[in-house]
């Protein structure tokens, strides 16, 4: 029925099956949209957030998807600026994921603020000293770049490409893509970093505060570096997942190996830096403020110190070790385990650096408070996932996301 739109030479499931999938995921999406509208119309009282737990589930999801979407900027940087040419076979996928992640992130930000209609004040009345201003600017600009990177992909749809102007536009945009990618990498560097800076500059919060250089706390660099390390893992994770779902090999193993190797190295260096940072913070920064490391984790009714171990060892050191060994990379089960652990690891990191910052008590006479998200929060957090799945489904069906697909599946 829609065969005219499907890229030449590839096989896709029947339209009925596709439509059914869209309807199912679309149902979840609508549920999320309903919750989102509730939040917009009735306010943030629809959530279970409070003055002691003011950053919660979806803002974690926000930072999470930005970190996971980091694959786009880093792969783009490697492909267009550094010149790792093989990566052209996976860059489209990275861009698509990046586009989904960043559009979701912006949407979540628009839901998370108490006065969405005034959200643009962050640009208009910008306070240049605030890390959040930096985040907002770089995030929106980088989203523009991602859109620019995604547009040619859309224009390469079989039917659209027939329009001469679209064809030319796609072509011309490809020509100057390196400039956009470089700008994107620059912007992404800053917003990933400033997201880390958001926590690191809070000198009233000993759990978050870090020393640093100039105006940037160490978390600034750790966030950028972790996005670079873990983002590609998510690209690999999604690619792998799509391969499993479609039952097709979509990207050649050497491309996967290359990205996994690069990711392994960045992750390895990152986790060393993270360990040093944690150690210095625990041994010097916190004690100077009268606190021991364990003070931040005791009193928590749920997970205590285990969250730190899970983040650094289980989901940091282990995946890095797997990705750094050729054997680990080439064993598909091990590789999948590694990229999955890595994704969980970066999500834990973002959880810790956003939610706990506010929840860990600072005054001696206060306690940790527990927080359980409301269904509206859960639905609104699932909303971008559903949206992402739909966009991936449509893009995969109608756009040439994987250039090697035809060759690998003759």
């Amino acid at each position: 029925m829609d065969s005219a739109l499907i890229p030449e030479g590839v096989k896709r499931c029947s339209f009925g099956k596709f439509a059914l999938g869209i309807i199912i995921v679309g149902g979840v999406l609508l549920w999320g949209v309903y919750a989102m509208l509730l939040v917009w119309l009735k306010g943030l009282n629809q959530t279970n957030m409070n003055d002691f737990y003011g950053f919660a589930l979806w803002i974690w999801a926000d930072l999470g998807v930005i970190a996971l979407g980091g694959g786009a900027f880093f792969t783009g940087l490697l492909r267009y600026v550094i010149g790792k040419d093989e990566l052209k076979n996976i860059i489209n996928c990275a861009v698509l994921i990046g586009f989904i992640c960043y559009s979701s992130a912006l949407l979540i930000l628009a839901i998370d603020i108490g006065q969405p209609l005034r959200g643009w004040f962050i640009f208009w009345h910008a306070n240049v000293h605030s890390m959040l201003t930096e985040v907002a600017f770089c995030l929106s600009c980088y989203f523009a770049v991602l859109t620019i990177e995604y547009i040619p992909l859309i224009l390469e749809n079989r039917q659209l490409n027939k329009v001469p102007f679209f064809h030319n536009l796609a072509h011309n945009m490809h020509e100057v893509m390196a400039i956009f990618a470089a700008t994107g990498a620059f912007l992404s560097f800053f917003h990933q970093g400033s997201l880390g800076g958001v926590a690191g500059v809070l000198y009233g919060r000993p759990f978050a505060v870090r020393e640093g250089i100039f105006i940037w706390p160490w978390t600034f660099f750790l966030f950028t570096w972790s996005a670079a390390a873990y983002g590609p893992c998510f690209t690999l994770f999604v690619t792998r997942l799509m391969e499993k779902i479609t039952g097709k090999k979509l990207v050649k193993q050497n491309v996967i190996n290359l990205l996994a190797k690069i990711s392994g190295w960045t992750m390895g260096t990152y986790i060393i830096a993270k360990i040093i940072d944690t150690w210095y913070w625990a041994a010097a920064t916190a004690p100077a403020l009268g606190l021991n490391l364990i003070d931040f984790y005791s009193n928590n009714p749920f997970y205590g110190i285990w969250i730190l171990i899970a983040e650094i060892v289980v989901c940091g050191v282990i995946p890095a070790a797997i990705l750094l060994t050729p054997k680990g990379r080439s064993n598909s089960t091990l590789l999948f385990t590694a990229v999955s652990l890595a994704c969980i690891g970066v999500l834990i990191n973002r959880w810790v650096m956003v939610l706990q910052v506010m929840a860990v008590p600072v005054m001696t006479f206060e306690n940790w408070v527990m927080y359980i998200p409301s269904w509206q929060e859960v639905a609104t957090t699932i909303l971008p996932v559903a949206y992402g799945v739909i966009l991936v489904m449509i893009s995969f069906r109608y756009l040439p996301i994987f250039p090697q697909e035809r060759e690998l599946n003759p």
Partner: protein
Amino acid sequence: MKIGRRSFLSFVVGGAAGTAITPLPWKLTDDSSIWSQNWPWTPVPPDGEYSQSDSVCTLCPGGCGITVRKVDDRVVKIEGMKGHPINDGGLCLMGLSGLQLLYGPTRVKTPLKRVGKRGEGKWEKISWDEAISEVTKKLADIRSNGESHAVGSIVDSESGTVPNLFKRFLTAYGSPNFMTMPSIQDSYGMTLQLMHGVSAQAGFDAENADFILSFGSGIIDGWGSPVRMFKANSAWKANGKKVVQIEPRLSNTAAKSDKWIPIKPGTEAALALGLANVIITNSLDSKKISQSTGFESFKKLVQNEYSTDKVSKITGINSATIVSLAKNFARASKPLAICGKGQGSIPGNLNEFMAVHALNALVGNINEDGGVWAVTETDYIKWPELEMDSVAESGMQKERIDGAGSEYPHAKSLLNRLAEVINSGDGSLEVIFVSGANPLYSMPDSKAMKTAFDSIPFVVSFSSYMDETAGNADLILPNHVYLERYEDVPTLAGLSKPIVGLTRPVVKPQFNTKHVGDVVMLIAKALGGGMADAFPWESYEACLKETLGVKWDVLVKKGFEFNGDKCILEGDFNFYPEAMKSLSNFSPVSVEGSVISYPLILIPYDSIRLANGYIGDPPFAIKAVEDTVLKDKNSCVEINPKTGKELGLTEGRYAFLHTPRGKAKVKVHLYEGIMPGIVALPRGLGHTAYDKYLAGKGCNFNELIGPTEDPVSGLDAAWGIRARLTKV
């Protein structure tokens, strides 16, 4: 024209792009933010002309001066009056939230007549004329049947023109049943009556004392005139004066004192006498008092029956502490002992009051700086002699329903006995007037009080608010609130110098309400005859002006009259009046319930953040209540962690609190500041009336306890009740 897919797409894309470069989207974005800054459902208080005026707060007996800030005809803030002798600018949180009572949703806006069942909340709005004729008809019928003594009234206190109008009304009508809400004033008054033979209230020169020994009085929890006590407490801190607090729970007062001595509750009198023993034995007593009547008998009593070891056993306080406390107290240059637990809403054990007063006398601080003085009852009410007709004469011959003056000869009013008398069929009333009081909430065993009220055929409430008593009335004749009316406010609450304030209309009446004084006079006039003659004034305001005489001008100008002289506590002091004889064999006031079924003891505690009298907490005040006192819809009980461990109750757990009088669901708060084996519950919660900000929150302590008659005074002496806590 055929619109193809492509042209449609071009139209949409082009249209969007075209719109984007027009100012429209930007204008809309800007407009929407401006709209969000001016949401019509977020109020914008109108500006206007600013003014202020002085008045007096009547929300508690404290008598603080207030200054209200106004914008046009709206009062926007109540503040403490600077330079006022009681509070000098400071004000408690109830006083500060007064506007929520004035403008709040709990006001009764017009006379209401019950149409549904009692307490069902179905009312008919009626006019004042109808309301007054309704009451008049009833009263005329009863009077003509010779049942005039079956009409009673409950008012907040016995001083001031309004209570006296009620009293005069009942007297002229022919009923002795003028009842007042109980408090420690009753016990202090009786103590002075018995030990000095004078009719006065005790006044304390607290500010000048240098060693304050408090037998559980909530000095900073609302005892006496609260703000005045707060100020005295601060002065003690600043000048290094000592405060010793004796009570089983680390109250705010105990925490702020220099020494907190936990005591087995109910044994305070024994401690006072034990201290007296140490003082006398060590010859630390003031020699000027040893000539007083009864001193030798008193000496014998304390030496024989209140030896340190024995008192230590009774009170649970170790001997060394007792001895050093006695010595420090006696050696202080201006020692002062006070009693009356918490805020003083329960009159308490008369022996304890007398023992504490004897302790004061022993250290020679009566009529001395920093000591005990008298505050005489209001002396400006000099109304023409009442001419009683025969009905009134015969009605006034009848015994009071509560037994005051007969069974208990020293008592003036024993509201605590009313419920039992009525419920046991020993007496009955036809009509009850309730003004400035909420007995259905604030009397111990409030359920029994409700049962008693249920059997009174005609209940008339003068309340300004829809409180529990008003909600169960047949007729509500709403009074103006204090910010809308004139009224004299004589303040007796433990002040060493008498002061009269004037509350005045700072704002015109907001609703169709009438001054209770006017209503009483209108009813009397409608009854005619001698009743009408007893009230020769045109209106309440005229009555007040005439009553106050020259004071009126001073009061109108300054807001209060205060001459700054203390009153001598006259009369010969008697150390050992007849009434004290029962102390020769000490037995603490018993608590209701058996040890086996109720292994714990429940005591109430008072918090300044919780009103437990006539008014309920306004929204601001209830908002200020901690979450360890009220959480969600539940009161929290305080128990020692040890007790918690024994019962398997942890912090925040729900539990059932059982007493012989009732049961309530509570939340457990483990508190190291409470004696093991004791459960403490805050007073002032568990309202069923008022607005949604107060109703249905927590449990009412008064539903869990019953009154215990003091054998001498007949007043309520219950300080606690046996209890049991079980897991939910």
